[in-house]
């Protein structure tokens, strides 16, 4: 009886763990078509306008598909090249017919540009997407939010200080002895 009553919630949980990640997929909110040499490339954004630090997916679909082509992305923001989001483009994990970045965030508010270099059977070409105006970071002020986040550390420091003051290790022979 006990086993049976546990079985249903467990099965539901396992189903979620099985199905939920595969279902996570952002719809496209905005797209532009750019010309990278001989290749028209559709660039899609899952969030528009993008906001600093808010996650989004960006996809790149060359006309005729990605088969036989490679692409490299360079993202340049107000603070220079964003190395974390630049590099060779891979297929988008849930839309494998196109290249894409999933769950990235542009770290800074301001003007961004993206250079997409496409190589394929008809040669190479580069498209520059932008300027993209990235809006301000949403949500509460970062400092206040981090203050809430570090509260457990304050508790740990308090605990260590309390333990230290109670034991006063400097005055113990325990601290001065190897044994």
């Amino acid at each position: 009886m006990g086993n049976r009553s546990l079985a249903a919630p467990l099965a539901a949980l396992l189903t979620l763990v099985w199905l939920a990640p595969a279902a996570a997929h952002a719809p496209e909110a905005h797209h532009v078509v750019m010309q990278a040499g001989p290749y028209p490339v559709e660039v899609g954004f899952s969030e528009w306008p993008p906001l600093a630090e808010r996650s989004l997916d960006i996809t790149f679909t060359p006309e005729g598909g990605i088969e036989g082509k490679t692409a490299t992305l360079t993202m340049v923001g107000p603070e220079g090249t964003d190395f974390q989001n630049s590099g060779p483009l891979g297929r988008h994990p849930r839309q494998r017919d196109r290249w894409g970045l999933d769950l990235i965030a542009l770290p800074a508010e301001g003007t961004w540009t993206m250079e997409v270099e496409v190589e394929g059977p008809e040669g190479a070409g580069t498209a520059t997407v932008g300027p993209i105006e990235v809006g301000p970071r949403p949500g509460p002020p970062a400092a206040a939010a981090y203050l809430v986040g570090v509260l457990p550390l304050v508790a740990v420091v308090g605990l260590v200080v309390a333990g230290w003051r109670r034991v006063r290790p400097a005055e113990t022979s325990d601290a001065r002895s190897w044994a």
Partner: protein
Amino acid sequence: MATTVPGIPTVPHPVLASSASRVRARAGVPMLVGVLCSFLGFAWDIQWHVDVGPDTFFTAPHLVLYSGIAVTGLVCLAVTLLTTAAARRGDPAALVGTAAAFGSYRAPLGYLVGGFGALSFLLYGLLDQWWHSVYGFDVAIVSPPHVGLILSIFVTMLGGLLVFAGEVRRTERPTPGAAVRFAAAAAILFAFLTPTVLDTLPWFVGPISWPGVATSLLYPAMLLLVASTLRLIGAATLAAALFLLLQAVSWVTIPWVTREYAEAIGLFLRDTTANRPVVPGMLPSFLLVAALAVDGLVWAFRRNRLPVRFGVPLAGAVAALVLNLLQPVPPLYFIGPDAPAEFLAMVEAMTSATRIPTVVVAVIVGAVTGWFGWRLGVVLRGTTGPAPTGLASAVQPTAVPAGVAK
């Protein structure tokens, strides 16, 4: 039999009292399992984000992480309730080695700390769900709710460390089981802290390599904390061997299980990932060598009756030197054929430019944190067991009722 806990009525109940002691004697193992699962779930979750990506609350790595915390939290809750109930029923033995929380709840300090960590984890988990509604799903490991979650896991693991320090102090010399559990808890705690500490600053701060300094902040402290708490020959080496085992097991299993789970649910590794171990790849690879050096120095100083005040900072400095010379930067998981050439060149240039200043800073930092680790060990010994020698009057960490023999 009366207790001295104010406000707690006394009702003799030997069966409950003995069950409290029984549960406490056996709670260490599930506590360690919970802490281990928390680390493995955390490392798997990061690997999942890097290699596969899509995130909802219901992923298998989250299941392992949350189960680990849940097990730890429930163990802490059970021990606290049983100890409190035993105290209420007038069993003074149940009060030995306990501390109070919320007035009348009592448990060994480690279980109280671990329980608060698990509770705090739950609250930050709720905050994280709200955060996702504002910022979308996870992009970075460092966000305010993640900092809260990670620190809550840290508090839970610290609770584990206190529990095992209490086990170590239960006997005159630590039993082998207690020594292994304490060393394992320390290894898991420091392995868990490493990725977060590495992520708090840019990897190159002026002429200094942050991973080099961060390694020296953490590991000399870990080795000397274990040496100080256990006071056994080879204590640091024991902790480093368990650390190496944890690193090896997670190095092999975490990328593998990430691939298998993705495949099983119809997802794919990113084209741009190499499926390299992320968290295990951030852990220092030569801790065993550093630990052998620490234990060798401790042994030589002890044998020749040389002072602790020189030996401990020296051992910390040597540990930092060994770690930095053998591995100037951790095996950065993202450096490989798929990393941009410009980035690789930058890392190479900065690594060679920062080597000497980093070693100098790391050695100084290692001496200080080694000293801190040793002193922290003394504090752990004092708060979880009998008073340290030489200061019996100042330390009565546990509320032992008057007239009760320890």
